């Protein structure tokens, strides 16, 4: 990297480009927060408007939702371990933890696809009622984010294998970890706001 570079401090913050990319991504996450807040608000407004169709209380399964939560929360933890390895300068352990994170993310997605298919089979489709439109778009937007994150992380794995740990790749890994933790936070709100409340109402 030709831009001015410091030799100390966390790897991802050593170049000015790195610092700006990270700040830019934080601001982007602010925008994402506004996006999910709007989806949550829409879901809350449409809550209960099931138009004589299936209700969430009939369909939500505590087991599935809880498993998905554990998978995603654990993946957030392993993602943290990946960043910890990066700070220690260990490429191998970084790659390992990233791959573990990805496997957990993929399993989460598998459960979500199963869950969506199951609901659709019971007559709760996107078109069934306003409530289910709100549910599928909120949970689906989160799922789409996870999917894109997995594709993105795979590209980073290839770049890490090709180039090793540099301030540039370090910044990229740090940014995707921010993204991953953010998706985890959103999921916590989905788990409580959508699944837990949906099951008791």
């Amino acid at each position, binding site marked *: 990297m030709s831009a001015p570079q410091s030799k100390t401090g966390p790897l991802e913050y050593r170049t000015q480009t790195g610092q700006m990319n990270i700040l830019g991504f934080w601001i982007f996450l602010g925008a994402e927060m506004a996006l999910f807040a709007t989806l949550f608000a829409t879901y809350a407004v449409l809550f209960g408007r099931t138009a004589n169709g299936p209700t969430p209380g009939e369909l939500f399964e505590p087991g599935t939702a809880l498993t998905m939560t554990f998978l995603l929360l654990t993946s957030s933890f392993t993602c943290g371990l990946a960043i910890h390895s990066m700070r220690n300068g260990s490429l191998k352990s970084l790659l390992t933890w990233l791959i573990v994170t990805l496997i957990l993310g993929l399993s989460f997605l598998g459960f979500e696809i199963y869950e969506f298919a199951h609901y659709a089979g019971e007559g709760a489709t996107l078109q069934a009622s306003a409530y289910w439109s709100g549910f599928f*778009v909120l949970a689906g937007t989160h799922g789409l984010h996870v999917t894109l994150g997995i594709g993105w992380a795979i*590209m980073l794995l290839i770049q890490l294998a090709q180039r090793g740990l540099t301030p540039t790749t370090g910044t990229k890994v740090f940014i995707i970890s921010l993204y991953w933790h953010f998706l985890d936070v959103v999921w916590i709100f989905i788990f409580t706001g959508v699944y837990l409340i949906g099951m008791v109402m």
Partner: protein
Amino acid sequence: MKLDEFFVTGEPLIYGGMVAIALVTSAIIFLLTYFKKWGWLWREWLTTVDHKKIGIMYILSALAMLFRGGADALMMRVQLAFPDMNFLDAQHYDEIFTTHGTVMIIFMAMPFLIGLMNIIVPLQIGARDFAFPYVNAMSFWAFFFGAMLFNVSFVIGGSPDAGWTSYTPLAGAAMSPGPGENFYLLGLQLSGIGTLATGINLMVTILKMRAPGMKMFKMPIFSWSTLVTSFIIVFAFPILTVALALLTIDRIFGSQFFTLTGEGLPMMWANLFWLWGHPEVYIVVLPAFGIFSEVIATFARKQLFGYTAMVWSMVIIAGLSFLVWVHHFFTMGAGSFVNSVFSVSTMLIAVPTGVKIFNWLATLYKSKIRITVPMMWALAFIPSFVIGGVTGVMLGMAAADFQFHNSYFLVAHFHYVLIAGTVFASFAGLIYWYPKIFGHKMNERIGKYAFWFFVIGFHVCFFPLYFAGLDGMPRRVFTIIPEWMPLNVIATVGAFGMGIGFAIFVYNVYYSYRHSKRETTGDAWGDGRTLEWATPIPIPHYNFATLPHIDQHDAFMAMKKKGETTFDEAKVEPIHMPSNSGRPFLMMAILAFASFALVFEWITLAIIGLIGTLIFMGLRSFDYDEGYHIETDEIKKYEQSARRL
């Protein structure tokens, strides 16, 4: 799909439009080929990541859109002055007021201001470019293709016709079948991506790339207005993204968000739309305030009065802008308590806005005012905007709004704030910075003709409409009763006055290009106060060779006193620059193709386009191009010749 369903048929005006589009397109292709300019177009413009060139492209596109939106406006005014002539039928009139509103807000006002921000903000804060030049190019092409997608609707598929607010259930699939509304949804979605990215880009640029010593509260006021605007963009545009996406899913995939079936809630659209829409009003007016502040300070030849109050009032306006959205639909039945809360928050906005008005007046007070064309626009803004603002407070009183709602009183109000605010500022800003951008001033004499035609035309057009509204004339009608005729005829005369003013302005661009004296120094007006005036002319690619330590407002004023320039030969170092790339253009062209396919609900093609876009994002991820350096010799050579040392 048959060809006569794909193209719009049966309307002579639209056939004329098709012929015009075909002629202009072939003329452009012919000229580019004849003068062998294709390579130049690709190398210098389509692949550029230079903030100055991107800004110029924004402004050119915005002027084209101003022409299109203005033509829509004149057609509506002709119809309302001669309602029995059957110039436009009801359907065509509906389409035109829809495209007029959308084009003017989304594709004229915002890009014009973003274009000025693009060029000026990095220069004002002493930066070499944006924080993310590649993203900046992507933003521009997202806006450009979004605008093209929206504009092509009037010859292909049919224009949207549910108003620029696109209220459901009218805009839903049941009542507006066909591609028209889809054009609205996807055109806005595409350009919205660009706006959001620009907001993030400008925030990082301003927070991280200011000149050494330039603290936040030493920053020029236009840059401050840009920072505050970016903040609004970042938190308001995702709401629009969601609203548009939900309605798109409703229309194309049959979900039930805003439908009358399946317990959908059509009124939720109005809430989501205005949760974005009201902050949007401030997105287009805060930069205008910033421009007027710069112009007034320069030509009053005084430091801006109450700088800190100016900044804080903008911050307060930005905060309040998210808390007033319900005032757009007091009559929808939210109940008196909710209406009262939003009535009070609406009127509160008048306070910080009033602070700004008095600060401008105080800047002018006892100053030696230099009357130039940009200053005339700024001086015309203050009283005109106050009229718009005061009638806004009238509309903000919920009880009274039940009378004003959806009448021409409202139409007159928002044209008073948007034209006197945003459009006057666009002209003021462009003429003020014109010599900086193009190396010569716009002719002052012709500029004054354009000014007087436009400003007098504006008042003649919109002032009578307040009274038409009080007489009960509703908005969005294509025919009127005889009592409203006189006022409408006057308004139409005024509208053509504005049209003549705009035509003179465009002629002035050509005239000045041919005849204006070329500038030799960067400080074209001689009274420049802020850092953008410190660069030589034409602005070097890298903007600043060196920067002095900046420790006060009006950095360039201080530099002039101390005899400093942005070229200190001893301190010149190689400057790191980003490389050009054609990928932003191609990626957004492909995304526009996907959007176009989705408009016609050709799902397979849309998916192919989306995959293409993702591939381009992947290519960017694997792109480790680190740009290049401009060497010190080259910088010294340029600065010495430009500064005639």
